[in-house]
């Protein structure tokens, strides 16, 4: 499998070659900070460009899109990582360590349980309250995305 070819099939995937490795994505990435740079979007993109390879670290992205907002070359960093996940699932399967998140998603509509703490914080930031939902479960059931 050549990741480059698979990505090039998508409009956003074509932006892979925009990256000039300035490190602005990683420098401010909350996941990178939390994982002592084990998750490193710049490295993921560079690896894809040079080697065309995929590794498990792509699953550490929280999809906050900070990297994509800041990217000076307008590389769609977060979208690319989502695309890479799609390619990953196509060729392998959803990795075991992601399973609890999918279970959560099926259970409450979010990858994490939303508790009082989250909603308190949202209130402070003038954001509307969010509630658990079962709609995602229906979708997952119909699309076969839910684990047996």
């Amino acid at each position, binding site marked *: 499998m050549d990741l480059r070819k698979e990505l090039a099939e998508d409009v956003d995937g074509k932006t892979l070659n925009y990256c000039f490795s300035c*490190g602005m994505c990683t*420098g401010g990435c909350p996941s990178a900070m939390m994982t002592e740079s084990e998750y*490193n979007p710049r490295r993921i993109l560079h690896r894809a460009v040079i080697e065309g390879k995929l590794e498990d670290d792509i699953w550490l992205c929280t999809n906050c899109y900070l990297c994509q907002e800041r990217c000076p070359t307008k590389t769609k960093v977060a979208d690319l990582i989502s695309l890479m996940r799609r390619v990953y699932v196509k060729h392998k399967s959803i990795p075991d360590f992601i399973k609890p998140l999918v279970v959560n998603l099926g259970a409450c509509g979010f990858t994490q349980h939303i508790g009082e703490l989250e909603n308190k914080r949202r209130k402070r930031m003038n954001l509307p309250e969010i509630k658990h939902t079962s709609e995602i479960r229906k979708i997952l059931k119909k699309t076969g995305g839910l684990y047996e």
Partner: protein
Amino acid sequence: MRTVLKKIRNKRVKSGSKPQTKVFICTCKNEIILPNELDFGEETTIIEDINSKDTIEKIKKAALNSRVILAGPSPRIMEKHFPEGNIEFVNIREHVSWVGHKPDKIISLISGAIAKQKNSENIEAKKIPIKNKSALVIGGGIAGLESARHIAKAGIKVFLIEKEPFLGGVVGKLDRLYPEGTPNSHTLYPLINEVLGNENIKIYTNSEIEQIEGGLGDYKIIIKTKGNIIEGKNLRKCEEACPISVDDDGIERKAFYYMPTYPDSYCIDFSSCTKCGECVKICPEISLEEKTVSLNVGAIVVATGLKDYDASLIKEYGYGKYDNVLTKLQFERKFSSGLIKPESVVIINCAGQRDQNYLPYCSRVCCMIGLKEAKLIKDVSPQTEVYVNYIDMRSYGSFEELYNTVREQYGVRFIQGRPSEIIKDDDKLLVRSEDILLGKNIEIKTDYVVLMTGFVPDTGLLDKLGIPTENGFPTEYVNSSRSVDSNPKSVFIAGAAAYPKGVSETITDAREAAQGVTELLIQEHAVFKTPTAIINSDICGEIDCRICLSACPYGAVYLKDEKVSVNPELCMGCGICTATCAAGANQLIGCEDRGMLSQITNTVEEGDILAFLCKWSSYNAADKTGYEGLSYPENVKIIRIPCTGRVDAQMILKAYSSGAKSVLIAGCPPDACHYFTGNFKARKRVIALRELIEQFGINPKSLRIEWIGKEESKRFVDVVNELNNK
């Protein structure tokens, strides 16, 4: 359909009553074998050596009152002998003899040229009188001063305009210049003194351009000026009384202030003055009135320099929010004046530059400025920790030495990785970035952050002068031998107004601009030999489509009293506009529709491949096949054109109707067109035309457009062979 087209072919264009046509054929010392019969119905002379002075004189004389065709070596070589441009060259050496083609090919090539000459207007050089032998230099920075000094030295009157109250520009505000860190006084003070000592230079500070009218040799400029020197006593007391405080790139000063350049007097910074009148109370002679001055000049030097990009737009770095985040100029001024004494400094290269969200380009000099600031800090305070965050270190040429010195001897630490954000951490700043070489996220606690923000042009003037811009800087002038040339040809762009430059480059530039101005103004007339387009306003007026206005890459085609006209000073003779004119009202002299079509009919024979080759690149590639001893099929006939953009649908269809089996259009590589985009326009035209010719029963694959560079002779051979074998 093919037969219909053939009928058109037989309707050859009849020539009108034109001067006599004379044909000269050079055998290049019997190197070129001529066909046995040479009868064109015109006076034909065979010459042996084109390089002899007598022969050249003879041909020049003939060209005075008759149309001359000169068959011999490539026009690439011949043009130097006949710069007047009114001779039609036929290349029978490189394109016939040297590629091993039969001598009979010469006949069709020469007949084509004769037909073209008969149906073309004579090319005449344009003479524009130089009415005002004086120059205007806009900008009193290092570029303007240096240009003014050199123009004035040649005895030409110079008006030097500066919008600030003092001369010196950005360099005047600096402490040091890279690479060595020489104080600016080494360069600036002697330069100002020389400018002041020259009687040919008239300086207007506190002045701005109000209006520009006219063109080469005859510009009328209206400036608004508030006067240079303030008359009166007790000016120092006025400064004390002035209530307006200004942050002048890091240094606090009053709106009534002094700078050690010129004028040697306290002056008012009118951009911050509120006209409160406090200074007038102390010194009643001070006038705040504005005057209008009218100047007549023949040429203009734009030396408007640059300014810093607004750093507050780069949200991640907190400029304007955190006091200790400074721009490069602010930091240098504060630090060298001893206003700040940091224990640690982080220098961020490419801050907001090479960034599609802010400035997309590289300002070229900031890497060196960053190194200069690092050296400045370490020179003054060796214990201060200095970090430089960079994406790529672009210390080109000898500046690598500065990079080495700063790293090896001063121990400045370099981190590859552009910081993602700066946050406040107690009284310090926290710079977050990735260290790409470690592959790790790092945080550096620091006292000060210096942003190497990019440079933007300090002018809105280029629009007034009709100079096309990109990112605010003038579009690079591709076909110039000098970096300062622009179009209009009486405007020269010196120094950082063209693109960000260091001081030494700016000085070189300023001298080039001065040389250009001097060269132009010492003449009685400016002579332009390039043929230009002309508009037949009768035909044009009927159609009035105005498409050629947008086609011109130079803005030379414009509306004058609602009529399409061509500005001969701007026209570069590419013919792109001529090709767009469906009515035939727009004609490039020497390359008119009529001339080109009759050349095509008379050159092309059944089964030929007609190659339209751009004179700047592909034609030279075809020449190269000759001197390399390569060969290509006999039936390839070459027509030299100024640009592929000149080739229009008519010409291509004419080639087919005259019997050509294939047509090749070849020009400069992408983005390298001598006239910016002629090659792309030609490509679009060819793609559209392919669909059309298919309807006529012509194989669309027989029409090709290729980029063939000057050295790509083998590619040329491959392409024509492919076309021949189809």
